[in-house]
């Protein structure tokens, strides 16, 4: 057990009862149970902590740019294991994007107060120094944004932008970076990666740009990928492709994905576990299928009800063919 202490993992509080763990983190529970019989409880919890990639504790985000402070996120608790896909769903303004930005360490405006803890592998990234945070950003934590139109620098070649994280976090040579960039571009299922590498963002379509963003995010093999509504600006077929791509990447590289969307059907396709947020509060949490089968909250029911059903798809097609 000494390796745990050596690796700087902080002495934990209890990560929760077996019952809550069983629902949300089966792997952690299995580990805990298998070690419980042999080790004292505290040590078992340390192991649980070691499996835990991300732990958000009682996160509060408040804006102070008006007379009255406005609360965007209220007491959010969230746990993610390594390699897990978690979805956050909620309407606009429910605080899901703010939470994502906070986890990515992008909330640095002075008129925002942040309280709570965001532990990434045991390290508090909400309250650590910027230089420490920068070491993690791009290397272990990466993020994709909603608008592929604006998330790439219009004046830099795609290859340069994919390489940026490598330039900042690795000692690779120019050729090494190029090889790695081409590799991730190919992994992101971009045909003709060499051509894409040498083109400017305005040469590419929206879907291709989002793939480039994913490639750039994956360049350093991050442990956590935050996807903030990555498919909202894309049409439905591309949406499905991007979701499939995220799934594939996660399976191949064991990257944990925090997928934020207002579209429950997408979350159902992709995620194992879902968090429902409303007005800054986390109101429901659980395995996706369970939440779909028996939603506990009225709001969740409404969200599920809002998914458009297309039972008559075949009939309409028939009509057109006639």
């Amino acid at each position, binding site marked *: 057990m000494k390796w745990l202490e050596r690796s700087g993992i902080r002495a934990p509080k209890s990560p929760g009862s077996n019952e809550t763990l069983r629902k949300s983190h089966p792997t952690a529970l299995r580990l805990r149970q298998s070690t419980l019989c042999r080790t004292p409880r505290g040590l078992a919890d340390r192991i649980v902590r070691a499996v835990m990639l991300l732990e958000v504790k009682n996160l509060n985000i408040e804006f102070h740019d008006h007379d009255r402070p406005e609360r965007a996120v209220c007491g959010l608790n969230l746990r993610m294991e390594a390699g897990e896909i978690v979805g956050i769903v909620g309407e606009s303004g429910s605080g899901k994007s703010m939470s994502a930005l906070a986890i*990515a*360490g*992008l909330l640095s405006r*002075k008129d925002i107060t942040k309280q709570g803890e965001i532990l990434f592998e045991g390290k508090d990234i909400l309250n650590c120094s910027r230089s420490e945070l*920068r*070491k*993690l*950003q*791009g*290397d272990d*934590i*990466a*993020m994709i*944004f*909603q*608008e592929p139109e*604006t*998330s*790439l*620098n*219009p*004046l*830099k070649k795609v290859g340069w*932008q994919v390489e*940026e*994280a490598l330039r*900042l*976090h690795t000692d690779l040579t120019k050729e090494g970076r190029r090889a790695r960039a081409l590799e991730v571009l190919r992994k992101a299922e971009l045909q003709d990666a060499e051509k894409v590498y040498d083109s400017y963002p305005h040469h590419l379509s929206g879907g291709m740009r989002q793939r480039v*963003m994913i490639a*750039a995010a994956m360049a350093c093999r991050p442990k956590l990928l935050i996807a903030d509504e990555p498919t909202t600006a894309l049409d439905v077929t591309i949406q499905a492709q991007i979701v499939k791509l995220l799934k594939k990447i996660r399976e191949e590289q064991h990257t944990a994905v925090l997928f934020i969307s207002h579209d429950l059907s997408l979350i159902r396709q992709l995620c194992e576990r879902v968090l429902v947020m409303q007005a800054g509060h986390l109101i429901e949490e659980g395995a996706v299928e369970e939440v779909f089968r028996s939603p506990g909250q009225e709001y969740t029911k409404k969200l599920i009800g809002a998914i458009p059903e297309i039972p008559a798809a075949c009939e309409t097609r028939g009509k057109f063919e006639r």
Partner: protein
Amino acid sequence: MKKKNWNLLIGGLLSGIMLLFIVVGFFYTPCSPEAMDNAAKFAGVSAKHLMGCDHFGRDIFSRILKGCGNTFIVAFGTVLIGTLCGIFLGAFTGYYGGVLDEILMRVNDAVFAFPSILLALVFVSLFGGGKYNIILALGIAFVPSFARIVRSEFIRCKNMDYVKSARLMGAGDLRIMFVHILPNVMPVLVSSVLIGFNNAVLAEAGMSYLGIGVQPPEASLGRMLSEAQSYLFSKPSMAFLPGLMIVLLVLGFSLMSEGLKRER
């Protein structure tokens, strides 16, 4: 077919010719621009003196060649100082904002509120005239306008997603400012630099006309105008030719900046 950008074409051509003129003037003039020839006072056009001679018998063509160069150096230096300081000030204030931004921009406003000629006059009376002092004086007077432009562009760009994603990749503030944002500021900056260059040419001409810019016997376009004013009726070409050069120089650059705006 794409419509031809006549502004850019003509402006570029004109500026190109002027630049050629200036470069030639640095290395070669038909006569020495400062050599006086008593016999050739107010001489007319001849093979030896392409544009005639002035009241000291100096070759006007050579003086124009040299004078264009001097005017250009002053204008270029002014714009260079203005742009470099402007980029730094604008980048830091625009990117960080906050109290520093407020203070620097108010100082900026104060400098901006002074007419640049007046500011340069104060500077010259403190530190003396001459080519290099005038560059410094005009340069300082030009900083605020560039700082403002760069600052507003930085404010526009710093909230773009690509800046966020650069930050998320772990890039430092300096890297974000000068590698990620600055290229996006360039299109706006370039056209304002060209306009600034025009203003600098005119300001230099004004300064030299007032006698505090380039000092005699050195030639500059403004100096030549001021020397010519006593002979405006007896020898109009002495004033007309340097004036025409100023017009062409300014016209070329403003057409070019207009054309670049269209391209954007």
